[in-house]
């Protein structure tokens, strides 16, 4: 007993072939869309790869690119077959390869659903990579003279300005690292010597943040230094001051950005597989 049989006459067959041909061409366009979404995601990951220690996984965008290309090719072939099905002479040459082609299509649909699922799941991996990468970035902020890390300061400053965030979890992360290079510290100065000796690792720590943490929406000029010292600034209470610097951490900001991108890509690539 065949599964879901339907009676067809010539008119119905022609209408079916035409409808399917139209859907196949739409699928080609959707394939191109998925390909470009994968490309866009790859470019975005590359842009911020420094923040992720250069070891972020490119699995998802590569898979999206592959799936997009395959979808385009498979749909174009399917459209050609549909077009030829109206002419019995032309259809005869496609008939033998139709069964393996349909099996391939089934497998391909499964792959597409799997890719969409991966888009949603890989967000955890991105989160962990970001946490590790940002921690190292903050550590290497001061190394503007070390080859391979000399642009870390600029990248981190631009990221904090663009994503409106400060530090890894919050701005206090900057209090725990030395973010001023030793080249700009006067080691003969008593103040500097005191600070350096005041901790085990001999780091110059201070309760200050870089300028890129400053919030332009603050009504007063940015207070970057002596953030926890209320008496260092007139009419300042660090416990209630909210607009001075960005209160969000960069890991949360970057993760929100990437996760919303991955969610929308996953949603838009799972719907075409339903059509197919």
């Amino acid at each position: 007993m065949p599964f879901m049989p339907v009676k067809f006459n010539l008119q119905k067959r022609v209408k079916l072939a035409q409808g399917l041909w139209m859907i196949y061409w739409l699928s080609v366009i959707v394939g191109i869309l998925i390909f470009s979404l994968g490309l866009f995601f790859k470019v975005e990951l590359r842009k911020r790869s420094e923040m992720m220690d250069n070891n972020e996984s490119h699995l998802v965008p590569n898979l999206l690119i592959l799936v997009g290309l395959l979808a385009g090719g498979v749909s174009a072939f399917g459209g050609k077959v549909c077009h030829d099905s109206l002419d019995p002479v032309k259809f005869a040459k496609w008939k033998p390869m139709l069964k393996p082609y349909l099996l391939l299509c089934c497998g391909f649909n499964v792959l597409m659903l799997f890719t969409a699922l991966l888009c949603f799941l890989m967000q955890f991996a991105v989160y962990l990579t970001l946490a590790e990468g940002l921690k190292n970035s903050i550590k290497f902020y001061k190394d503007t003279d070390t080859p391979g890390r000399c642009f870390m300061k600029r990248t981190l400053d631009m990221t904090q300005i663009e994503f409106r965030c400060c530090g890894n979890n919050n701005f206090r992360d900057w209090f725990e690292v030395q973010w001023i290079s030793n080249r700009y510290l006067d080691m003969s100065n008593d103040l500097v010597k005191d600070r350096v000796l005041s901790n085990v690792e001999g780091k110059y720590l201070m309760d200050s943040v870089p300028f890129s943490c400053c919030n332009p929406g603050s009504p007063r000029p940015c207070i970057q230094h002596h953030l926890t010292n209320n008496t260092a600034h007139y009419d300042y209470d660090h416990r209630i001051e909210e607009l001075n610097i960005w209160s969000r951490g960069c890991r949360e900001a970057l993760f929100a950005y990437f996760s919303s991108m991955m969610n929308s890509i996953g949603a838009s690539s799972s719907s075409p597989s339903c059509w197919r």
Partner: protein
Amino acid sequence: MALMLVKFDMKKRVKLAQTIWFLYWFAVMAGVLVFSMGLFFKIELRKRSELMDNNESHLLPNVLILMGLIACGVNAFGGKVCYDSLDPSKFIKWKPMLKPFLMFCVGFNGLLFVTALLCFVMRIPLQFTLAEGLKNGMRFYKDTDTPGRCYMKRTLDLMQMEFRCCGNDHYRDWFEIQWVSNRYLDFSAKEVKDRIGSNVDGQYLMDGVPFSCCNPSSPRPCIQGQMTNNTAHYSYDHYTEELNVWKRGCREAMVSYYGGLMNTIGALVLLVTMLEIAVTIGLQYINSSLSSLVNPEDPESESEGWILEKTVGETFTDIMANMKAMSKGGKVEEEAEAGVATVS
């Protein structure tokens, strides 16, 4: 002797009509492009209107929007006429309005050319508006509690960060104004009282710049305060320090941004003008070739097409004569009326 006479047979006429129809649809898209460029430019001006004292001239984007809409309409109509020109029965109904339509097209092309020129010329008033607006913007930087100006600080900070510039002409502009609000100055402190007493206007001036002037590419953390005091910072010489703050002035940055935008738009409008001239000439050929059939009953007969029926000089004298006749005709009518009035 007609201007640029070309012989046409049926096949050539059909080819011409098809090509010009295709070009007309291209021109419709070009009209949409001009419209969207005008819209984009208007939005860009609106975004930064605070920095231009809210009195920037919106003439250019409004003209572009209008021209874009008219271009779409005109080209769509022209395309329809071209399409119908292949069918003599349909073409008959368009024939009477074709001459005024072509005159209108010529006038419209002239206006487009003027618009393109305007794009290049309007840069100069924009420069003055920007200079004035930025100077005021900096003066009102500290007024974050004054209604109507409370967002000036944020706008100016965001602009300096985005355009990578500092101050009006350079960063020293910030040394000449008070950019810290009085609410955050401790007037009981001796240092503050000294600074305020040291100048005629009683302003708190200092050799510091806001954080938005900082250059992220600098290898050292940003030096914002006491910029001209070499001893205040270790290993610092303000004469040779280049990467610390942005060196470019914001007026120069904004002028080059808007100037580049206007140049691009002007160049594109020139291209669109040339396209419009081409389609107008094409339509004139179609019109003239269909009205000069050797055998009017046979649509497949040969014909001639031209841009002007007579030479340029003769056409000009004809137009002058027509205008004189029209004005004379008007005068005769007036005299007749006056005569009637005096008689009665």
